Structure formats: structure tokens, C-alpha cells
């Protein structure tokens, strides 16, 4: 099977972590790591691993000519500029920024629906961790309201997230409704500065109609967690769904693979792991 030729746009923390994951993929061939800062540590690491790099960002990607898919790990503002250029060039874009030009995808839930899209967005780390759980419960019984709480280590929340924290809660809550199919939703983010840093944790509360098939819900959630684990190995249910009054409570921990970013930052790892998973699905479709 021919490998899909891909590029990583953005040589910061996310782009660099992504590089290690793409390197392990049997279906992806990393052609280029594109940055804008010649002194970037990410670009230096890419070169030391034998990858081609450029320092003119999107220009370098478009010039290359072979690239079929780009991971955009820059910023929302940059992606808004990149998206039309990539589209014109017929290059698939996996958008890891909050720009949300294309539809939000959560691989285990709705990737199939969007397999023909040329630009997909990965919503948020909180959504990747929690939306599948909401969807799993919803497959057994309608979820009237879902609430998600994501607690991240302070060190793993970059300046972009911090300065625009409303965007995280809004985007995640929208994903819970649009992709998870909860009728209403609310999302909360908490930053914890403890040292050593805490592992990313999430809690999902799902209000359902009673009576409810508790075992059915539990089995559905646990089966979903197994599927997620196939592409995010550090995904773990720490409190299995249990009924508390009118709602199920489920707790999840996400430990990162420790590729470039430390294992506590499961919130960053889950996004790069999902990005590779989505790219591999494109590789299967296109071959």
C-alpha cells in the first residue's frame, strides 16, 4: 500500500509531538515539517530525525508539490489564512487549531460522515475525551443534558488556551451537542498547578430518562473506551458510569504517550493521537 504523503505545519509543541507519532505510522510518509522560526527547537529535531524542513510555513508546503495532507498545528488565525490555499491546492487539511473551518470530527463517533471532507477540525481535547462517552450513552438512551469537566495540569495549558478560555468551554459544549447528540450541554475547564503535574482528567455527567438500562449504558461506555484506546493508548476510565439520581457519572484519565510532551499532558497527546488516526483513515480511503 502506498503511503500518504503528509506535512506538519507548525513546529511548536503540538507539531513536534505529532512528528513522533507520524514517524511511527505505517500509512503516513512525512515529507515536510514547515515552521516559520529558523531557531525553532521543533525544526532542529525534525532535521535531526532526517526530515525536510522549511521556514516559510504554508509557502513551503504549497511549493513541495507532493503533499496530499497537512496537519495544521499553528493557530486559529493562521489556519483561516491557510484553509483556502490548501483547498485550492487540493490538499486535505486536518485542523488542530480552534479555527473550525471544517466540521468537527471525533473519530469513533462521526468520522465516517465526513470522510469526503477536505478540511476537518478536531474540536478540542476535552471534546475528544468526553464526546464519545456521551455518544455511547446516547446509543442506549437519549441524553437530555450532558456536562463535561476537564481538569488539566497548568503546565499543559498554553497561552492560547489561557487567554481565550471561553472558546474552550464553548467549543467543547458545542461538540457535546452536535457530535455527542446530547440535547443540552455545558462544559467546564479547571486548571490545576500541582507539582508534580496532574494527569488530564475528565468527568462526564449525563442526565437521562428513568428507568434506564444501567448495564446497557455501562457496557456501551466501556466498549467505546476500548475503541478509543486503540488510537489513544493512555485513555482510561477511572470511575465506570454509575447512576446518581437522574444522571450517570463517568471519570476518565488521559495519560500521554510521552513522545515529545510529558505524559501528564494527555490533553495535548489526545489531539495529536486523534490527528494521526484521522490521517490514517484518509490513507485507507484514498488507497
Amino acid at each position, binding site marked *: 500500500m502506498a503511503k500518504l504523503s503528509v506535512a506538519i505545519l507548525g513546529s511548536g509543541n503540538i507539531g513536534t509531538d505529532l512528528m513522533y507519532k507520524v514517524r511511527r505510522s505505517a500509512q503516513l510518509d512525512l515529507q515536510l515539517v514547515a515552521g516559520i522560526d529558523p531557531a525553532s527547537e521543533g525544526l532542529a529535531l525534525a532535521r535531526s530525525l532526517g526530515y525536510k524542513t522549511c521556514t516559510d510555513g504554508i509557502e513551503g508546503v504549497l511549493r513541495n508539490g507532493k503533499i496530499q495532507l497537512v496537519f495544521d498545528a499553528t493557530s486559529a488565525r493562521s489556519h483561516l489564512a491557510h484553509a483556502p490555499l490548501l483547498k485550492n491546492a487540493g490538499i486535505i487539511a486536518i485542523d488542530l487549531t480552534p479555527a473550525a473551518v471544517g466540521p468537527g470530527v471525533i473519530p469513533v463517533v462521526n468520522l465516517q460522515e465526513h470522510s469526503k471532507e477536505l478540511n476537518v477540525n478536531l474540536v478540542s481535547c476535552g471534546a475528544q475525551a468526553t464526546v464519545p462517552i456521551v455518544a455511547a450513552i446516547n446509543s442506549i438512551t437519549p441524553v437530555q443534558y450532558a456536562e463535561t469537566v476537564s*481538569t488539566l495540569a497548568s503546565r499543559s495549558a498554553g497561552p492560547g488556551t*489561557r*487567554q481565550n478560555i471561553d472558546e*474552550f468551554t464553548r467549543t467543547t459544549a458545542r461538540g457535546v451537542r452536535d457530535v455527542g447528540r446530547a440535547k443540552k450541554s455545558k462544559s467546564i475547564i*479547571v486548571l*490545576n*498547578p500541582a507539582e508534580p503535574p496532574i494527569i488530564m482528567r475528565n468527568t462526564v455527567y449525563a442526565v437521562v430518562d428513568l428507568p434506564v438500562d444501567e448495564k446497557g449504558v455501562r457496557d456501551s461506555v466501556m466498549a467505546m473506551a476500548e475503541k478509543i484506546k486503540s488510537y489513544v493508548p493512555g485513555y482510561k476510565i477511572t470511575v465506570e458510569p454509575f447512576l446518581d439520581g437522574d444522571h450517570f457519572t463517568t471519570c476518565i484519565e488521559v495519560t500521554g504517550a510521552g513522545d515529545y510532551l510529558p505524559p501528564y499532558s494527555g490533553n495535548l497527546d489526545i489531539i495529536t493521537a486523534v490527528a494521526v488516526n484521522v490521517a490514517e483513515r484518509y490513507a485507507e480511503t484514498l488507497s
Partner: protein
Amino acid sequence: MAKLTFVDVTLRDGNHTVRQQFSPDLVARVAAALDASGVAIIEVGHGDGLGGSSIHVGRTAAPEAELMRAVVSAVKKAKVAIFLIPGFGTMEDLQQAYDLGVTVARVASHCTEADITEQHIQLARKLNMLAVGYLISFGMAPPERIAEEAKKMESYGAQYINLADSQGYLVPHEVKNYVAAVRAAVNIPVGFHAHNNLGLAIGNSLAAVEAGAAYVDGSLKGFGGGAGNAQSETLIAALKRGAFPTDVDLFGILDASDILVEELGKYPDLTKVPMPTVDNDTIMMGYACVYGGYVLPIKRAAREYGCDPRRLVLRLGERKVVATQEDVVIEEARRLAGLA
């Protein structure tokens, strides 16, 4: 000396005591009494502030907008404040509060995370509200760090810094050191918000005032998370004894306290709730530095899972939980009970 500005938080922090069940009628009547007593700022809302109504930290009995509207229409002179923790509350929520007539925005973060408050403080300034930078659980970081975070809030436009000892963890000489460190770092006034877990809410408030705090928080009957706050009535009396002037009339604040009790009597479910008290659980929370809002979840989880609440509190303290990590309480209780 300049007069202190007294802030009453009964109708916000006190909502923790009644599991977020304050009604619009109750908050209106108590606010009117507080206003009449001369309290300068009256804070209202969910115990964890705007957008707090949730399964995670408790659903409010009435929509938060109704609580704000009730207080705004009940007061003549006092300013009405909201509390907002970005991550829960959004700029949209802040805009709504402003539209309802709220004029003070106390924008809060855990004491080391001030940079999440920038946009919200800026919006409050743009709306011409009194913008307050509020540092939660400041005893969890050293004074130098708290001073840095306060400076960040000042740079965003905060007009005073409020320091909250949210666990009732600190002792008076520590409070003085923190207040002095922050005062030395910023050019805006400093305020203090006490909790009573170690029986020090009044003593710590006086220590803060001695160190130059210009704003001080209290609540009627001490209503508030954990063991409760500095009791407003006691604090006003003690400030008078210590010759620290405020605009609050002693009889007036005592009347407000009576009205709170009278109003609570109209809600049989609320009077079943224990009053804020220094008990074994809250002492342990102060000692182990565990956030006050967790007291009811801790009692409930210990009961449901049959674990020793003291051990549960110590585990939470070791995990350095910050405000609004209520889900960790269940997780740890289940772990102690051998269920997870």
C-alpha cells in the same frame, strides 16, 4: 485611617451552605437589609459564581439571572457584585450580569492562574464596572508568587485585588505577610476574604486590615463554603472595637442577620441544612488545605462509600485539589472504599 469598604458575600458564598438553594425572594429581602445597614458591596449568585449552576458543583434553585435581578431591584445605595471564575463563567455571562444592573465584577482564578482572567477583567473595565482581580486559595502558593499574579491582574485593569483564604488554612501572621507582599507589588488596594475552618476568620480579617487591606469580605451568620466565612455581624463589631471604621451600622447588620434567619425559616428544606460550623470535617479541611466548597460532597461521599472523612480530606490535600474539582472527591472516596 481611611474607611474600610465592607463586602457582604452571604448571597454568593453562603449559597454553598444551602446547596445553592437561595430563592429570589430571600436574596431580595436580605439584600435590602444589607443595603440599609450601609454595606458597600453585595455579592450574589451561585457559590462558585456565574455559570456555576451545574451537576458538578450544584444546580441553583432559581436561574442566576433571577437572583441578580432580585438583588439589583432591592438595593438603593449598595453596589451589586458578581463572582466569575473563567472556565465556568464566560464573557457572555458577564455581559448579561451587566445588562441586569450588576456593577462590580469579581473575576477569580486559582491563585497561580491569573492569566485566564485577562479578557474578563478587560470586559468589566470596558463596561465601566468595578473590576476586581480575585485570587482563590492564595495560601497554596508563596507570597512572592501571589504578588506576581496580583501584578498580572493589575496589568489587565483590575481596580483592587481580593485575596481569598478559601480553605481557612492560614494563621494571622501568614495573612499579614501575604497582604504586605501584595501591597508592595501593586498600586491598587487589596482586600481579604476569610474562611473559618481553624476558627480564625475574624482574627485573620483583622490581621489583613492591620496589614493595610482596604476591602474586607464577610457573610451573615458566617454563611459560606466549608466552615463558613468571617461572620459579618461579628466582624463589624470587632472592627468597631479595633477602631477600624466602615460605613456599616452595627444594629443594621444585626437586623440583616435576623432577616436571613427569618427568611430561611420560610424554606423548611433549607433549615434542615446544617449552619456553617467548625466541625471535625472542616477542621481537617483547614488543616489539610482543602477547598471549602467540598464540605458537603465530602460528607456525602464519606457516608455513601463508608470511608473515614478525615482520611478522605487528607488524600484530597495530598492531591492538591483546587476549587471546583468536586469529581475528585467521588473518585478518592471510591478508591478508599476499594471500589475504584
